[in-house]
C-alpha cells in the first residue's frame, strides 16, 4: 500500500544532466521542484577525489560508477525472429546510477547537430528524391530546427565552459574551426585544449589531403572558468582518466561542477536518493498525470503527487517508464502502428589503429582532446553516387592510455597472447593511436523498444526489450568513413596501420558508445512521435520527456550537446508557455 506524500509543483525522474537543468530553470521560475534519483548522492570529494579515482580496474573494468544490471537491465535481440535474452552484465553501453548521472563519467565530447540533421527526411527527399530512402527506414524531421535551438546550444555551452574553436560565427566561416557547423551567435566560452602530439600529426595529415581539420569542442575546461550561474570550475590537467571515471579537479563539465552548487542551496528544491520510480500515475482519463510512484531502498512504496512530471532518466529508461505507465500507444513493428518504443537508434563506429615511429605518450590525454574532420558527416557531401544516407566525423582522440582497456590493438598478424603479444605491447604501447569514425544510425521499423514477455526486474516489472541491428545503409556508410579514416592514417606516415571495419551483427558486447537514442521520438505528427516539438507528451500534457530518448534518429555526433540544448529549450517552453496555460502546447 503506497504512502501518499505531500504534492509538489514538479517532480523529476532522475537527477542527472537534464534534471539538473530543469530543476535550476524551474526553481528560478518559483516552482517547488523535487528530483527522485535511484542511485546515491555523489560529489567530487570524496567520491571522485584525485587520490583514488584513477583506478582502472575499479571504475573502467568493474564499472564502479555505472548502473548494476542485477537491479535493472534490458533484454536484447538483433531481430524479431529471435528471442531476446538479458544483458547480464554491461557491455555495449554504460548507463549511470547516482546523482549527476552519466554526466559525471562521460568524456565531454560536445557537439551540435547540423541544420540538415533536424530536417533529414524533407532534406533528403528534396535533394535525392523520395526513393532514395529505403522503405523500412523510418527517419523523420524533428519538429524543431537548428535555428530554434541555437540559443539553447549556446546556453548549454556557456553553462559547461566548452573549450573549442568556432567554425561559423553568424554566417562567417572562422579559420581553424569546423567550416560545416551551423552558424553560432558567438565563439565558445574557452579556447581549445592543448594539442597532444598525435592530434598535431592528424591535423597535418588531414590538411595534406585537402581536408579542414579542427580541434574538437571539449567539456574539459582549458582554463579556470566561472559560468553564468556563478559556479567556478578548475582547469583540465590531461590526466587521461576521463570517460568512465569522474573528475577530481572540477574540470569536467557535469551537474556537480556546473549546476548543483547553485541549485542545492535553493529552498524550493529538494531531492531523494536511492529511490526508484516505477510508474507515472495517470488519472482515470489517462490524459493527466497525478504524479509518480517510487520504491525506496527499504522496499517501501510511495506515491508522490505533482502537477508536472518530467522524465529525466537515461534514454531508454524513460521509454521503459512510458511503457510501464501506459503513456502513448506502444509501438508494434509488424503493423508499424503505435509510437512509444519506436525509432530506437544508436551509433556506428569503427577505427584504424596507427602504429607510429615516435613516442606519443598516450597516457597524457583528456576526454575530448581530439582533432576531427567533418567533410563526411550529415549531408556535407554528395550521397547520390554512394547509395547511403548519413555520415559521421572522423577524429583522432587522445583520451588516455589506460593499460587494460585502451590498448590500441596490435599490428596485423600479432599473436593474441604469449611472447609475441608481450613483445608487441612493449614495442607499440607508447607509439600507437587510433583514428575513429563516429557515424549516424537511422531509424528502422525493426529497431525498437518494448516490454519483454519473460524477464523481470527486482520489482517484478517486465524488463525493457531492445530489438536492434545495423542495416546495409549503416554498414555501407561506415565502410566509406573507415576508408577515409585509413587515408588520413596513412598520411600520418606510420610504420603500419590496421583497419577495423564495423562488420557483423550489432553485439551487446563489447563496448561501443553509450549513445542510445529514440523510443520517445519528438516530431510534428502524433502518429509517429511520442512528444511534440517542446518535448511534451502528445497524450499526457503534463508529462515532458528529456534526453536522447526523443531523438527520432541519431546523427553522426555525440548526443550530449543536443540533449542539453533540448533541455533548456523545453524548460523555456514550460516557463514561458506551459505554466501560463497548462495544456497541450501544440495542437495535434
Amino acid at each position, binding site marked *: 500500500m503506497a504512502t501518499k506524500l505531500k504534492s509538489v509543483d514538479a517532480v523529476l525522474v532522475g537527477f542527472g544532466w537534464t534534471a539538473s537543468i530543469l530543476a535550476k530553470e524551474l526553481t528560478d521560475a518559483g516552482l517547488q521542484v523535487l528530483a527522485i534519483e535511484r542511485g546515491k548522492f555523489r560529489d567530487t570529494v*570524496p567520491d571522485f577525489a584525485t587520490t583514488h579515482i584513477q583506478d582502472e580496474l575499479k571504475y573502467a573494468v568493474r564499472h564502479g560508477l555505472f548502473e548494476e544490471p542485477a537491479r535493472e537491465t534490458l533484454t536484447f535481440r538483433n531481430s524479431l525472429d529471435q528471442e531476446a535474452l538479458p544483458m547480464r552484465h554491461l557491455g555495449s553501453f554504460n548507463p549511470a546510477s547516482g546523482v549527476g548521472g552519466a554526466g559525471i563519467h562521460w568524456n565531454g565530447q560536445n557537439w551540435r547537430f547540423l541544420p540538415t540533421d533536424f530536417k533529414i527526411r524533407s532534406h533528403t527527399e528534396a535533394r535525392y528524391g523520395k526513393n532514395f530512402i529505403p522503405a523500412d527506414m523510418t527517419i523523420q524531421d524533428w519538429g524543431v530546427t537548428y535555428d530554434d535551438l541555437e540559443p539553447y546550444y549556446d546556453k548549454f555551452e556557456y553553462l559547461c565552459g566548452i573549450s573549442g574553436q568556432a567554425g561559423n560565427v553568424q554566417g562567417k566561416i572562422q579559420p581553424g574551426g569546423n567550416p560545416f557547423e551551423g552558424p553560432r551567435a558567438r565563439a565558445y566560452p574557452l579556447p581549445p585544449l592543448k594539442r597532444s602530439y598525435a592530434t598535431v600529426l592528424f591535423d597535418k595529415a588531414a590538411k595534406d589531403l585537402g581536408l579542414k581539420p579542427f580541434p574538437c569542442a571539449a567539456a574539459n575546461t582549458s582554463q579556470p572558468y566561472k559560468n553564468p550561474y556563478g559556479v567556478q570550475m*578548475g582547469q583540465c590537467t590531461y590526466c587521461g582518466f576521463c570517460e568512465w571515471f569522474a573528475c577530481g*579537479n572540477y574540470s569536467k563539465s557535469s551537474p556537480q561542477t556546473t549546476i548543483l552548487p547553485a541549485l542545492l542551496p535553493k529552498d524550493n528544491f529538494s531531492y531523494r536518493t536511492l529511490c526508484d520510480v516505477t510508474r507515472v500515475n495517470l488519472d482515470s482519463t489517462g490524459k493527466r498525470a497525478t504524479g509518480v510512484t517510487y520504491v525506496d531502498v527499504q522496499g517501501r512504496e510511495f506515491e508522490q503527487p505533482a502537477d508536472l512530471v518530467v522524465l529525466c532518466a537515461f534514454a531508454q529508461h524513460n521509454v521503459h517508464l512510458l511503457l510501464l505507465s501506459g503513456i502513448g500507444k506502444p509501438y508494434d513493428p509488424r503493423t508499424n502502428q503505435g509510437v512509444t518504443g519506436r525509432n530506437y537508434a544508436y551509433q556506428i563506429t569503427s577505427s584504424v589503429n596507427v602504429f607510429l615511429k615516435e613516442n606519443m605518450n598516450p597516457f597524457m590525454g583528456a576526454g575530448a582532446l581530439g582533432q576531427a574532420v567533418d567533410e563526411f558527416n550529415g549531408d556535407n557531401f554528395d550521397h547520390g553516387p554512394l547509395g547511403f544516407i548519413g555520415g559521421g566525423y572522423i577524429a583522432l582522440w587522445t583520451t588516455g592510455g589506460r593499460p587494460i582497456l585502451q590498448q590500441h590493438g596490435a599490428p596485423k598478424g600479432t599473436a593474441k597472447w604469449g611472447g609475441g603479444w608481450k613483445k608487441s605491447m612493449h614495442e607499440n604501447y607508447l607509439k600507437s593511436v587510433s583514428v575513429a569514425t563516429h557515424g549516424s544510425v537511422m531509424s528502422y521499423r525493426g529497431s525498437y523498444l518494448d516490454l519483454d514477455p519473460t524477464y523481470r526486474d527486482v520489482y517484478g516489472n517486465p524488463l525493457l526489450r531492445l530489438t536492434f541491428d545495423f542495416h546495409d545503409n549503416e554498414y555501407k556508410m561506415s565502410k566509406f568513413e573507415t576508408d577515409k579514416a585509413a587515408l588520413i592514417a596513412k598520411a600520418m606516415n606510420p610504420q603500419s596501420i590496421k583497419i577495423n571495419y564495423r562488420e557483423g551483427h550489432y553485439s551487446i558486447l563489447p563496448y561501443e558508445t553509450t549513445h542510445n537514442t529514440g523510443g520517445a521520438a519528438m516530431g510534428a505528427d502524433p502518429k509517429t512521435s511520442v512528444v511534440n516539438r517542446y518535448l511534451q507528451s502528445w497524450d499526457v500534457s503534463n508529462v515532458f520527456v528529456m534526453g536522447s530518448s526523443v531523438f527520432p534518429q541519431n546523427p553522426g555526433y555525440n548526443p550530449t550537446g543536443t540533449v542539453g540544448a533540448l533541455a533548456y529549450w523545453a524548460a523555456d517552453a514550460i516557463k514561458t508557455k506551459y505554466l501560463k496555460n497548462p495544456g497541450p502546447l501544440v495542437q495535434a
Partner: protein
Amino acid sequence: MHALKLACGLAGLLGLSIANAIPAGAQGTTYTTIERGRDLVNAGDCASCHTDEGGKPYAGGLAVPTPFGTIYSTNITPDPATGIGKWSEQEFYRAMHDGIRRDGKHLYPAFPYPWFTKVSREDVRAIKAFLDTLTPVRQENKPTELSWPLNVREVMTGWNELYFHEGAFKADPKKSEQWNRGAYLVEGLGHCGACHTATNVLGASKTGEKLKGGDFGEHWYAPSLTSGLRDGLGQWSSAEIVEYLKTGANAKSAAAGPMAEVVKNSTQYLSDADLNAVAAYLKDSPVEKDKATTKPAAVDKQALSRGEALYFDNCTGCHMENGEGLAHAFPPLKGSSAVQAENSDTVVHVVLAGAKMAATPGKLAGFAMPAFDWKLNDTEVADLVNYIRNAWGNHAPLTSADAVSKVRKGIEHAGG
C-alpha cells in the same frame, strides 16, 4: 512585539515602570533595531558556538574544548525556562560587558566577554532585540566538564583581576572613522584575537602578542593577522582581505576548517563598509620582522627531495607543478602566509583530513581537498609538509613525524 509584551509584563511584575526598563531615546523594539541586531549577531558569529552540530539554532550545547576541559555553549534563544527569555536587557548587557550571568555567577572566557566588553550598550540592546525574535527552544544547558577548582566559577574573579580589561570601546581621535569602525569590530564583536592571539597557561591572551597567531585547538592554528610579510597579512591588499572575509577565498588563500565556518556564519554577512573597515584596521599594524625564521630552515636535502617526490605524486593535480595553484580555483602554496604559519598544525591537519572551502553566494562552488591520511604515513606527511613550507622560496619551521602522529590521533579522536 512578543519581546515588548514580555518586557512590559515583567516590568509590571517587578514594579518597574516601562520608562526605566527601556532607556529614553530608544525607539523601542523597532524592525530596524532587530535588523541591526541581526547584523551584529552575524558579526559576533554567535551561531558558530551557540548552535550545536545538527542542533537547533542558538540553542547551545556545542562542546567547546579548552585546555582545562570541555565547556558547553548555552541556550540563547528566548525560551523562558532554559534560554535567556527571562533576562532583562540590563542582565544581558552585564553578561556581554562584564562576563557575569543573570544569577550573578561568572561566565568562563570561552564566551569571549573580554572582547564583547567593548561593544556599545546600544549595540548590545539591538543584539538582544534580535535574539528575542528567535524561535524559543526548550533545551537545558549542559554543565561544564572542568576539573576542580576551575569548575568553581568564583575562581574567575582572580582571573578577571589579572587579565580582564573591562570597558567599552574608545575611539582613537588620531585615527579615521573607518579605522575606528574596524578596530571596534575586530577588538569587539569580531573577537578575532580569541583565536588569533597566543594564550598563556591560564588561557588569557599573551601581552604583546595581539593577533600574531594563536592555537584554536583541535589541531587548527589561527595564523598571524599582523603585517608579517611571510606569515602575516603583509602582502595582502585591503581588497584581498575583504574578498577573503566576504567569499571565503582570494588569490592568495582559502579559508579552511574553523575559519571557513566563520566566513559561512559571520563575515560573509558583513557590509562592504564594515569589511573595508576591518581591512583598514588590520593593515595598519606595523610591519615587523618575520617571526618565522628569516634564514631558510636547515632542511635535510634528502628529506626535501622525498617531499618533492611526494608533492609531484600527490598534489600537482590541483596545486600545479610550480605550487602556484589555479587562479580563482585552488589556492597557491608558493608564497602563502597560511602555509608558512609558524605553527604547522593547520597544514598537517589539512593534508591528513582534507578541507572544504566555504560556499558563499560570491563563490558557490565550495571546492574541496580530499583526505590523504589513508595514503600517506606520518613520515611521508612530515616530508611533504616540510617540502611545501620550504619550496619555491617559502621558509617555515620544520615539523616531524611525531608531531604529525599527534595531529593524526587528535583528528581521529575527534571523529574528523
